């Protein structure tokens, strides 16, 4: 990994960041770079170290080793100055339930050092932006989960920070609120804000992020755009749904000659990665019918981030510790060596 560049284009840089809590190695040397004005999604399962990294970058924790800087300010040495340049919306909405929405935002604004009047005006502006005008005068204890999230994000934006850290911003939101929040994040980025967000959801990373860093067991195991990551898995995937799971082994043997990689079998589904999609459906069906295997459904698709995640970490993204057998094998195409042996 290259050392972090210190020029203006890099908003967030981390090099060799290590953090352990007693026995637990939460971060095992993280290297990361986020270009100014872009969104980086930190994608990883529970316990991967996402929150720990966010806490280090927002000065809440100090790293045991390595260095990190945000807008050119070191997270340890320049922590005090850095705090006025960042906004944080943590994993759990950090709002005072006994205060109203407006009082929450006003308090945060004043703690950034603005006058009461200015903080209040900014609070009103943010309430309008986050569709909380009517609720703004009510105690936050009466807010729904989505409203709390929005208020929390508003609080992170009080000082119009150039860099924003969002730890699982949409976890627990209904689909409509989720899309609303995505749109808000997109408009912030359009205004020039740099965003680092963590997520367990691939569609979220796919939609919002310019770059994705996949993190597992405290290490970044892959980094790139969504398309680059998908290319690393390589080729197109032919997925065959079998009529009966009993035919799994027979189907695997029948499809093996189609690819350099071994087919992946999960329950009654067999997947095989191929170079080109031309004629693959016909070929697959012919081979399966020659082998006497009944086919319920078949399709060819580009790899999804889900496939990327599966091949990189050996387990599915949203289901912690669920390691489907035989999937690791088909990752060998374009994936770093350090991804192997990661299966839990």
């Amino acid at each position, binding site marked *: 990994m290259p050392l972090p560049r210190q020029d203006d284009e890099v908003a967030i840089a981390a090099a060799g960041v290590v953090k352990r809590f007693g026995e637990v190695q939460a971060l095992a040397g993280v290297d990361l770079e986020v270009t100014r004005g872009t969104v980086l999604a930190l994608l990883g399962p529970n316990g991967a170290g996402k929150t720990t990294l966010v*806490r280090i970058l*927002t*000065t*809440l*924790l100090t790293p045991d080793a390595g260095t990190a800087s945000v807008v050119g300010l070191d997270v340890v040495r320049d922590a*005090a*100055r850095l*705090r*006025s340049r*960042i906004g*944080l919306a*943590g*994993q*759990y*909405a*950090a*709002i*005072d*339930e*006994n*205060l109203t929405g407006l*009082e929450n935002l006003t*308090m*945060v604004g*004043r*703690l*950034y*050092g603005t006058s009461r009047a200015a903080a209040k005006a900014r609070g009103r502006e943010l309430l309008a932006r986050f569709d909380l005008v009517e609720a703004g005068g009510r*105690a936050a204890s009466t807010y729904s989960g989505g409203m709390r999230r929005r208020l929390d994000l508003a*609080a992170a934006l009080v000082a119009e920070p150039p860099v924003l850290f969002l730890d699982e911003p949409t976890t627990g939101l209904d689909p409509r609120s989720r899309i609303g929040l995505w749109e808000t994040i997109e408009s912030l980025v359009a205004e020039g804000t740099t965003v680092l967000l963590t997520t367990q959801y691939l569609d979220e990373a796919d939609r919002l992020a310019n770059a994705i860093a996949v993190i597992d067991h405290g290490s970044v195991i892959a980094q790139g755009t969504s398309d680059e990551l998908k290319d690393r898995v390589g080729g197109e995937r032919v997925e065959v749904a079998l009529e009966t799971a009993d035919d799994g082994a027979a189907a695997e043997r029948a499809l093996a000659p189609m690819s350099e990689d071994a087919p992946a079998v999960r329950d009654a589904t067999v997947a095989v990665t191929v170079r080109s999609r031309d004629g693959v459906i016909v070929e697959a069906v012919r081979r399966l019918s020659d082998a006497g295997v009944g086919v319920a459904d078949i399709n060819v698709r580009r790899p999804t981030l889900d496939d990327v995640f599966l091949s990189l970490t050996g387990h599915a993204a949203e289901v912690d510790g669920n390691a489907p057998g035989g999937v690791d094998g088909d990752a060998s195409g374009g994936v770093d060596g350090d991804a192997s042996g990661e299966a839990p």
Partner: protein
Amino acid sequence: MRRLVTDTLIIAERNLVRLPRRPDLLLAFTVQPIMFVLLFRYVFGGAIQTGGVPYADFIVPGILVQNIAFGGFVTALGLNEDVHKGLIDRFRSLPMARPAVLAGRTLADVATNTLSIVILTVTGLIIGFSFGTPALHVIAGFGLLLLIGYAFSWVFAFVGLLVSSPESANSVGFIAIFPLTFISSAFVPPDTMPEPLKWFAHVNPFTIMVDAMRALWVGTPAGNYVWGAVVWALIILAVFAPIAVARYRRTASG
């Protein structure tokens, strides 16, 4: 320094604004002390010999000190809640003066303690307590109570950051405060206690604080109690304020 003052006031305001919205907390500051005075005056009052001093005069300073020492307890609960709700993470990510979150809380406690003292004193006067000293001593007594309360607020600030849940804050508070306040001169004269307890009661800072209040408000012999009480309060403050702030710097919401 200016930053510390403004941030502390902002946090204190935050903690006071919410009071009227939390009837449970308000009850803790108002009804609970009244209940205590009434219980002690009328349940135990008949049985306890106080050696010449009317029991109402004996008990009111005792209950006041006990109540004010407990007053900072909401700080432990509130801070613990802030840790768990992630608010401490938010505060620590803001460019605010580091000690302000704790200093603001303990300052808000001074306001609520003032309320408790007034309510308790009025209740005391109604059940027969009377000041036996010049106005200056009475005022000094108020001051001493506030100082004691402030010192204990910092103890509770530390406890609130230390323990894992509001429940354990509760039990730590109970285990620490109950023996300290009961094995003292607050409710009964220590001379009636068995030898080891009597010894403890005599060295207990609570006894010194309670006897200081009796000297200032009732006019019992002052001895060195008043200065002793002030020194004890300052020692508690000097120990617990720094360790609470140090703890705060390292606290991450979980």
